[in-house]
């Protein structure tokens, strides 16, 4: 009889652990997910309000920078020149031109002769 009660009690314990534990954890997960969703929503709204450095894009073009990225290839009609240049996609030739610009160097004796020919007397 005593053993029977203990078995029943153990059964109840097992049932509670199986059914109740995951429910508690699931409820917490749901609550965390809701918190996360709310936090994401808040951040998006904050971003919209602030605009940061790129709020300028909106002022010039009437578009946010996110929208601009989406429509970067959709033409530049009505967009400021800076925004148009910003939308340009440099080719490998353009990048090579910049590399050539970086590696272009004037030998110091040539620079010295150029300054002497011009009667320039630099401080340094």
């Amino acid at each position: 009889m005593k053993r029977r009660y203990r078995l029943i009690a153990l059964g109840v314990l097992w049932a509670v652990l199986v059914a109740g534990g995951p429910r508690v954890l699931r409820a917490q997960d749901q609550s965390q997910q809701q918190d996360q969703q709310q936090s994401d929503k808040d951040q998006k709204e904050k971003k919209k309000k602030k605009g940061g450095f790129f709020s300028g894009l909106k002022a010039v073009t009437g578009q946010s920078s996110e929208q601009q990225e989406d429509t970067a290839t959709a033409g530049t009609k009505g967009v400021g020149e800076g925004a148009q240049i910003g939308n340009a996609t440099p080719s490998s030739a353009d990048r090579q031109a910049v590399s050539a610009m970086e590696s272009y160097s004037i030998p110091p004796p040539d620079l010295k002769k150029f300054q002497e020919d011009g009667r320039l007397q630099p401080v340094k």
Partner: protein
Amino acid sequence: MKRTNLLRRGLSVAQILAVLAALGAGTVARGQFGDLLRKAKEKTDKAQKIQKALAPMTVQEERDVGREVAAKLVAHFRPYKDDGLTRYVNLVGATVGAQSERQDIGYHFAVLDSDTINAFSAPGGYIFITRGALQLCEDESELAGVLAHEVGHVAGKHVIHIVEHDKALRAGMDEAKAYTPGSAYLQKMTQGILVKIIDQGLAPGDEFDADQRGIKYTHAAGYPADGLPRFLTKLDQATEQGGQSFWTRTHPPVKDRNQKMQQSISAQHWEDADRPKLANRFAIVAKTLKGKKS
């Protein structure tokens, strides 16, 4: 006997209930503790991101950003291919660039094939002058003044300071490969920089600062200090007659700029009429530009 059994039975049930309660409380506590740990980690990550966002840009980061801006300018305007002129602009640029307080980067100069009267500087020392601006110059000292003004923007880190103070912009900086040429991050940042420098203009204080640095470098290089004010006077007239330039559209009025520069030149006793303007040398190199139109 029956009573004892009941008591024993009762105790057993009480013990089981106590175990149950402890287990339940443990499960909830475990969940709450995990939640606390997650929130603490989120706060630490956020603090690290803010710290990184507020840190000054490294020279390498500045160069990577400048290189991307330069590539976009080249892609839009196309480079002007004239080896003699490129060499000449680099010689003048190197002469004034050597006078800059900032020597942790190199200054690189190129000519863009555009009728518009403009000059640009990108972070990292990339400096461009358009064919139209060169055509407006009358002598080497004016060219030196224009280039020195752009060197002044780089030396004063005017664009870099805007980027550094924008937390939202720098929030993505820890992303892997953020500075790879053509990356989405660089694309977004360089778009913002180009809109700022070309469509909106820098703060008037930054322009005045670049002017002051410009006359200082030009004078220290051995040219007359007033090359830039002379160029600006002609620019003002040219734009009144329909010349295209973002300088007059986004910069403070030429009158104010020239007034401030002349005040400094007088205060420093930099009026030196004997200094070489080098109009002949300029004319020889720039003759290839005559009648050029894109």
